């Protein structure tokens, strides 16, 4: 049994841990909100760009598709952009997305190359001896589009140069505070399906029989403008979603840690009280026992003295 003093020291350290984790929890909570707000702010552009993109790409009589939208018949190399966090203490966040990715790509039929965004993912891939083409760790906490656009730029280059025939984005989709799903998205070639959104596209509600657009300078030039930016925007979105997920996961992990620490502190407090009470009790027993022994000794002494007095009479 630990002494009361030792227990007291442990209580103090557990309580200070709880204080730190509680602070981290609060910080993460506010960061989640900010990341979500940034995703929302970039949505108008994404929606609009997608509309224009599908519209132009679906034009009847387009002779050739834009290179970034052309599916290659033979896929020889695959590039995976993996988004993880730079820092730990985020509960199962990194483990989940990594496990998800390894399940998809560990036994892939063609060579897989990686671009890592986030230190944790880079370390794991490096340890496993995977081929990392580029690494973009240290994305700031409140990323601007410019902080992320170079990633999209690199991916587009890799695709156009033929070093990769398909590019996937693996990241964590933020559902809510308690749910974050590892997700995979095909980034390139950009696939424009005959989407429901296409039907919404008409130059104005009420203006039926869509007059065809005037293009300046031409469709290809417009696609050249939009497609790479749309790709960059998708990467930007994924980074923001991942950051929101990271902070949410960290918040939950820190909440659990705070709860556990509080619980532990309570249990230790009980133990401390017990130990303290026990030491008091044993002290009391000592004193009582000592007093008893003293009383007995004195009584015996007194008896002896009385006997001696009787004999001498």
């Amino acid at each position, binding site marked *: 049994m630990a002494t009361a003093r030792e227990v007291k020291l442990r209580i103090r350290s557990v309580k200070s841990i709880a204080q730190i984790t509680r602070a981290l929890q609060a910080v993460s909570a506010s960061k989640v909100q900010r990341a979500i*707000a*940034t995703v929302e*702010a*970039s949505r*108008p*552009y994404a929606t*609009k*760009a997608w509309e*224009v993109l599908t519209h*132009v790409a679906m034009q009847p009589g387009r002779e050739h598709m834009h290179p970034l939208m052309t599916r290659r018949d033979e896929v020889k190399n695959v590039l995976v952009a993996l988004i993880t966090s730079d820092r730990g203490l985020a509960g199962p966040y990194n483990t989940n997305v990594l496990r998800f990715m390894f399940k998809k790509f560990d036994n892939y039929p063609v060579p897989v190359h990686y671009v890592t965004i986030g230190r944790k993912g880079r370390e794991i891939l490096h340890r496993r001896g995977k081929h990392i083409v580029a690494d973009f760790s240290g994305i700031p906490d409140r990323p*601007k*589009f410019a902080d992320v656009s170079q990633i999209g730029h690199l991916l587009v280059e890799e695709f156009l140069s033929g070093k990769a025939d398909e590019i996937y984005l693996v990241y964590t989709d933020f559902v809510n505070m308690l749910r974050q799903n590892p997700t995979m998205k095909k980034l390139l070639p950009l696939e424009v399906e005959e989407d429901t959104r296409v039907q919404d596209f008409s*130059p*104005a509600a009420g*203006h039926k029989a*869509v*007059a*065809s*657009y*005037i*293009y*300046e*300078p031409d469709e290809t*030039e*417009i696609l050249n*403008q*939009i497609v790479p*930016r749309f790709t*960059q*925007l998708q990467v*930007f979105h994924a980074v923001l979603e991942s950051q929101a997920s990271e902070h949410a996961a960290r918040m939950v992990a820190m909440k659990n840690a705070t709860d556990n620490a509080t619980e532990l502190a309570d249990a230790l407090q009980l133990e401390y009280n017990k130990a303290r009470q026990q030491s008091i009790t044993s002290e009391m027993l000592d004193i009582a026992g000592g007093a008893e022994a003293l009383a007995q000794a004195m009584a015996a002494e007194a008896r002896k003295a009385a006997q001696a007095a009787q004999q001498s009479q």
Partner: protein
Amino acid sequence: MPIHCEIVSQDRMVWSGEADMVVVPGASGEMGILANHAPLLSTLKPGIIKVVRDGQEDYYTVTGGVVEVRPDKVTILADASEHVTEIDERRAEEARKRAEELLKKTPPSTAEHLAAQAALQRARIRLDAVRRFRPKSGPQIQSGAPEDKG
């Protein structure tokens, strides 16, 4: 008759509202867009967007992008866009100097050289916009100021 106008960049909605006329730097020249314009898609050159409403003029810089015109709506997908009152003149001036120095140092037609050229052009547009169109006095932000959600 007003036309609805939206200026969006990748990270925020720069401005949205009604306008009487929107002038954009199109790929093949400046275009003034009024209501009931024919449907049009055009790329944008770096330059200045002018929004006219109720006789007032508002200016935004744009570094490139795409404009989509429908009879009742103009949407500008900007690579980057700022209202003239948002521009930090000192920073733009610094950016211009930096770009000019870089331009001298780098050999022509390398990637760095082209990037520096683009940066110089951006800085010049911003400086130009500030010097020509910044309201001289009174409130810096007018009623037509962008909603900054960033």
